[in-house]
């Protein structure tokens, strides 16, 4: 079974920054995760670019910055017509790092795992507890 391919699509230069960070930390290349901006794109252009980045077949996940908006809209349209396409919205660095090291997992299992990873990757703290923010839990 082929490994899952990922494309981050986001506003302005966010996708580039996220993917560059993942590469700097993990050392993975473009074959695992690539970046796409929605800047200057009509809905059709963004859809076409995203489809090209995903390739015609094979398991893939589109990571978007928000759950709504033009990036998520393009992802959802593509997921309706392209088989084996998952979507993870609100992607952050912990999610993307986990993704590049678990691309061999079946797509549904991987999507569920990444959603959980994203949620648990956000913690909160204030004042005196800030020094222990890594132990704070946000659910």
């Amino acid at each position: 079974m082929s490994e899952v391919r990922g494309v981050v699509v986001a506003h302005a230069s966010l996708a580039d920054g996220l993917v560059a960070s993942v590469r700097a930390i993990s050392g993975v290349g473009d074959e695992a995760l690539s970046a796409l901006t929605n800047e200057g794109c009509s809905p059709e252009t963004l859809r076409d670019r995203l489809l090209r980045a995903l390739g015609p077949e094979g398991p893939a996940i589109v990571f978007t910055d928000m759950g709504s908006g033009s990036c998520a809209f393009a992802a959802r349209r593509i997921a309706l017509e392209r088989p084996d396409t998952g979507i993870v919205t609100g992607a952050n660095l912990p999610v993307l790092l986990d993704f590049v090291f678990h691309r061999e997992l079946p797509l549904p299992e991987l999507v569920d795992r990444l959603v959980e990873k994203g949620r648990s990757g956000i913690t909160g703290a204030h004042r005196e507890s800030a020094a222990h923010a890594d132990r704070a839990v946000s659910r």
Partner: protein
Amino acid sequence: MPIVLFRVDERLIHGQVVVGWGGPLHADRIVVVDDEIAASPWEQELYCLGVPEEMATSFLTVDDARRELPAWRGAGPRVIVLVREVATARRLAAERLLEGVEVNLGGIHDAEGRARILPYLYLRPAERADLEAIAAEGAAVAARDLPAARRVPLEELAPPR
């Protein structure tokens, strides 16, 4: 005026509209006017995912919107009207239905036959003619992608030489 934004934007409901404009304008309702989407429940569902819960959304054909437009201009909810094509705006503006309203050009992107006017605005000659026709029907026409950006009136929307 209850039509707080009348916008031409190929992306229709997206971040700039919901967050950038919808917040400062305190909009209560988004109306998408598009014959194709008005007949497509699954596309409506996708667009609604981008709308905050407190904001109502409806999808109308041009004919239905023309019937309702005078009511939107009276007292009532603060409405954002969205169309994705200049030609749709022209149909809505016919018979001076948009007189006194500003038609905001917020996102028409590069495509075959279009010339670049602004980074977020590309127009075909036919679209430019439609905009002139909308202005002749008594509406103001200006480009501005976000509230903080400079308003560029129709007279300045010429392709760079």
